[in-house]
């Protein structure tokens, strides 16, 4: 990241705050295919496919996010891309599918704060009321001019995936907007 960021950016400053932290993700894949392929991949990971819009499934090794009827985002927390990719490819051999390593395409930020949902709503039009976007919900959405994938890990705890070259923009926006929530009143 050191080469992609200007040390003077508010984005850099934001990550110094406790509420926004970079998250290491060992591997990421986009898996696309029919229900058989999606179920086979989930089974190989010891999980059930989250076969419902905006839902996720996962454990401490892998998280599966439903991105579309035939599309899942797989986040691996420990196993790296070559080994996980080979394991999934073997499980998917009998199914028409597309499995693409996008580990480096995007980066992850974790936003943890009492004001997290309100801060996200400074740039994201999604209804983040827990009744509409509950803990465990995940979806592709927008933050102003960038695509993000948003996954609610807790009421005040969000995991954000963003394409790497848009990360600086996202962090600058969050840092700027956060002043409304972190600045002392008066």
């Amino acid at each position, binding site marked *: 990241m*050191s*080469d*992609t960021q200007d040390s003077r*950016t*508010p984005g850099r400053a934001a990550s110094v705050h406790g509420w926004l932290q970079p998250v290491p993700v060992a591997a990421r894949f*986009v898996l*696309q*295919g*029919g229900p058989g392929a999606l179920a086979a991949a989930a089974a190989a990971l010891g999980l059930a496919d989250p076969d419902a819009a905006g839902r996720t499934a996962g454990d401490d090794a892998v998280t599966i996010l439903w991105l579309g009827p*035939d*599309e899942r985002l797989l986040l691996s927390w420990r196993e790296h891309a070559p080994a996980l990719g080979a394991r999934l490819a073997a499980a998917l051999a009998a199914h*028409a*599918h*597309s*499995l*693409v*390593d*996008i*580990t*480096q*395409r*995007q980066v992850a930020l974790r936003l943890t704060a009492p004001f997290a949902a309100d801060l996200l709503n*400074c740039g994201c039009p999604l209804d983040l009321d827990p009744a509409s976007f509950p803990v465990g919900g995940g979806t592709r959405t927008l933050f*102003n*001019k*960038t695509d993000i994938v948003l996954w609610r890990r807790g009421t005040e705890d969000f995991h954000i995936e963003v*394409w*790497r*070259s*848009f990360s*600086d*923009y996202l962090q*600058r*926006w969050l840092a*700027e*907007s956060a002043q409304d929530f972190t600045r002392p009143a008066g």
Partner: protein
Amino acid sequence: MGRLPRAEAAVPGPKAFVDFQHDVMLKDLDLAMREGFRSIEHIKRYTTTGMATDQGKTSNLNALHHAARELGKPVPAVGLTTFRMPYTPVTFASFAGQARGEIFDPVRRTPMHGWAVRQGAVFEDVGMWKRARYFPRAGDDMHAAVARECRAVREGCGVFDASTLGKIVVAGPGATAFMDRLYVNDWSKLAVGRCKYGVLLRDDGFVYDDGVVARLAPDRFHVTTTTGGAARVLAMMEDYRQTEWTDLDVWLTSTTEQWAVIAVQGPRARELLAPLVDGLDISAAALPHMAVVHGTLRGIPMMLFRVSFTGELGFEVNVPSDRGAEALEAIWAAGASQGLTPYGTETMHVLRAEKGFIIIGQDTDGTVTPDDVGLAWAIGKSKPDFVGKRALARPSMRSPDRKQLVGLLTRDPRVVLEEGAQLVDVPGQSPPMKLIGHVTSSYASATLGRSIALAVVAGGRARIGQTLYVPMPGGEIPVEVCAPVFYDPKGARLNV
């Protein structure tokens, strides 16, 4: 109200504007009342006075007073119209919110941006991306820097950050059929590990995008797009995939930012790269022009493409984005003492123009067919269909008078034409002249020691050898029409 006296009827008076936003004049209000409208709400709707975004704040009282006088009523009896939002003025700052300065628009930087900064790059905006345009050394202006960079690539070796090119993985059992239906090319015979230059049309038959496509597996293609076309090509592909060709099991994934891409180009590119690729055989026999192979570069996983947008022996090193800077440093450490020269987009533009390689959006403008820009060879002749095929069969699309890509050589080799300049075939005309085409690309070529230009000219290929003229404020510039490949027309330098 402040109505000025004006001559009645006999001579037309000055224009008396009431509503400055909607250009409503006193005579419009008069006409409304002559037509029988009496209610101020009807007068408003007939004339649109007070209906602009200021909701009449700059106009309504003028209109009311005029209507009251003409209707012979006191102003309060005429009444006000219904106010709608915005009731109070809204500043532009409120609309802009935080979208200003650094966060007005995303600024995208490649993984090797910092390296380019340290090399003294001058950057240019390409879409949202910052791309290194040229690398001046002490005392260099852009012309001197570009000439030096061009010579380095033609005579030795240059290195270029090509990471911004769009990349899309097209995968699934239906991948070949999908590519055959979408691109003009025939993909069925492309072997695994080989590449082909792909041309994508819209359904109106006009060139939309281009790029090298590699077959990574029988059911998997690595498609590259132009930097600016990455998002719209993916959107077009998804549109066809989801709505037109639901019979195909094929899926699309953007990998633009998965890979950092380092182009190493020039006659010495192979000898420079060979010691770095951990024993991989990159000889001409093992890795010919338009081939791709997997390997490692100093231990970094790599997809190595033997491709060239310069006309020289060339490679594009693809490594995972987080290791792009490390890979470039390794190449730089090995090559800097050997004359390896960083080059930017400006040099890339000159080198490709010397070879007659088009740039989408510069040499094309959404109205050129593959044949217009000399790419008819790319069309798979035996394919039953592809996007744009039917449009290409229409008579106007096959006319020999269409504007075609040609080269231009100015009679005075020092004169560099203006891009966008118009062309005429009959000198000495007064405006309006009969314009037959325009210059699309124009550069001083250090390689050729003279200026070169690409242009689209009506019936251009039949005019090769003719003299045309570029009318400019300082006089007409005579140019000779030539084939659009100025350097190494047989491609001997590519296949080494």
